């Protein structure tokens, strides 16, 4: 049995605006095990990027943690991140225990600052010997397929895919246990996408990082590396299951619709055909009552409009939030 690395309990994070709240993450509970890749999949606006901010407690106004707890295992003991301030989590854990490759990673580096400066800065803020860390950075550059001498270069001299790998190298230099990658492949062409996936998997194999959370809208990509997948819709987890069983038989009607809209060059896809989900995702200021998917769901029943289906384990390891699979619907 693998140990739990990160645990979220009933987490709610809203964007609190003057009069309204955008309920971007609304009551999520899940756990991430050690030595595991978790894919978080959903359409734009479903709250997946907000979820990544919540996990490493990057709460910048108007984003506010309204409810729930987040625990991270550090040196064998659980620390409650949600009870600390952003600054405290940042000082103690960012870079060392938990790190993120942001959505626009290739543009995360200032084009006119040499990349080694970021490493020096990192060494300074964590009280590590600069030369030692630079040496480590050079090795890490080599591991992600970049020339170690390039650390002296300016980011604008590198291509998009290379810059992204440089960001990964710098972000993982302190061997954090959890790596969050937010849409890392969406701006790359397919050949570079594959290189990136290789780099991520290699880091996990070498034990540089223990677990990876891979946030994306591209199911075919995340399917290549993930062990389990979280499917999000309108700020909720609708399904959470091992990748193989999910692909074999998606349970939630939203998951089914999402999978059937994927076009990959495979004979199975031609046989299956392509479908689309009618309507559009809801506004998260005023989400629909009951199950948030019910206005678009082909199987909606009366209960779906009234009561929210809880995320329930219906087979070992398979959790789904849908009344179709629950016996007591009253």
């Amino acid at each position, binding site marked *: 049995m693998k140990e739990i690395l990160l645990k979220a309990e009933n987490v709610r994070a809203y964007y609190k605006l003057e009069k309204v709240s955008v309920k971007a993450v609304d009551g999520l509970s899940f756990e991430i095990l050690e030595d595991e890749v978790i894919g978080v999949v959903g*359409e*734009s606006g479903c709250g997946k990027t907000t979820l990544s901010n919540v996990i490493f407690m990057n709460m910048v106004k108007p984003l506010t943690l309204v409810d729930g707890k987040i625990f991270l295992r550090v040196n064998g003991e659980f620390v409650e991140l949600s009870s600390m301030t952003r600054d405290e989590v940042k000082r103690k854990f960012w870079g060392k225990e938990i790190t993120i490759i942001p959505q626009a990673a290739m543009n995360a580096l200032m084009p006119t600052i040499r990349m080694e400066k970021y490493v020096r800065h990192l060494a300074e803020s964590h009280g590590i010997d600069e030369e030692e860390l630079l040496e480590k950075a050079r090795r890490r550059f080599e591991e992600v397929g970049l020339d170690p001498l390039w650390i002296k270069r300016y980011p604008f001299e590198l291509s998009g895919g290379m810059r992204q790998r440089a960001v990964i190298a710098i972000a993982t230099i302190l061997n954090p246990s959890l790596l969050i990658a937010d849409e890392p492949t969406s701006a790359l*062409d*397919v*050949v570079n*996408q*594959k290189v990136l*996936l*290789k780099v991520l*998997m290699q880091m996990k194999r070498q034990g540089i990082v223990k677990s990876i959370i891979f946030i994306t*809208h*591209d*199911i*075919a*990509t995340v*399917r*290549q*590396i993930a062990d389990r997948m979280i499917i999000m819709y309108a700020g909720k987890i609708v399904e959470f299951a091992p990748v193989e069983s999910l*692909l074999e038989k998606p349970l939630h009607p939203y998951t089914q*619709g*999402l*999978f*059937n*809209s*994927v*076009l*990959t*060059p*495979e*004979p*199975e*896809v*031609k046989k299956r055909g*392509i*479908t*689309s*989900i009618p309507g*559009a*995702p809801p506004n998260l200021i005023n989400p629909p009552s009951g199950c948030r998917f019910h206005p678009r769901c082909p199987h909606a029943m009366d209960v779906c409009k009234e009561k929210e289906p809880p995320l329930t384990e219906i087979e070992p390891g398979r959790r789904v939030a849908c009344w179709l699979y629950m016996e007591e619907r009253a």
Partner: protein
Amino acid sequence: MLALHGGESMSRLVVKNLTKIFSLGFFSKRRIEAVKNVSFEVKEKEIVSLVGESGSGKTTTAKMILRLLPPTSGEIYFEGKDIWKDIKDRESLVEFRRKVHAVFQDPFASYNPFYPVERTLWQAISLLENKPSNKKEALELIKESLFRVGIDPKDVLGKYPHQISGGQKQRIMIARCWILRPLLIVADEPTSMIDASSRGGIIKLLEELREEQGTSIIFITHDLGLAYYVSDNIFVMKNGEIVERGHPDKVVLEPTHEYTKLLVGSIPKLYRKLEDL
């Protein structure tokens, strides 16, 4: 004049030895060959895809077919007429615009933000040969076209572009096709900016158009998955040249050119894992 009959069904579009060279610089001219000696044919009721990465010359090819960019050399025949040599007056150009329609990647850029969205549909009506006799009839035609693409006219009429979704905008561009009934649609990445869950709808609408009106469609895309699913014929472009062509099953399942092999091998699949990760 070119023979119109290509096999059993008629050729709608014939592209022969098409080349486009861009010259850069004032004194020391640098030449960029964006499209090199490209030839292909699109038959009636046929869907073909030009597949390639950015910079492969696929959009330049599309622009030349749409008569937006003159070729350096080579010919493009639409319905037997050379579109760069035989179209001389305004009348025949309007006729060409009526018969060849473009659907672009960015549905946001296809609308003027200062006008209600149905303006593009009124413009389509003004292009028609047999215009409706009065405004009421024209409005009926607009409503009918919106119903065809699965939009309730109430939801979009009188609205401005920022008030409707990207998927709706792309559907309205296809509603334009229902009014104009073009013979050829050039669709440049029509689904790349729409959410996955509504992409299937757009593809189905274009397929319906083909079935009911015999429209030929050229997809310009980097998405081999889309090309594999919809096309009768695929042309893979690389550095301005067509490096592989044929039936989707042949191109995707048994690629022969190194570039196609690399492309197919790198694309993540849903039902199988990449081996060397």
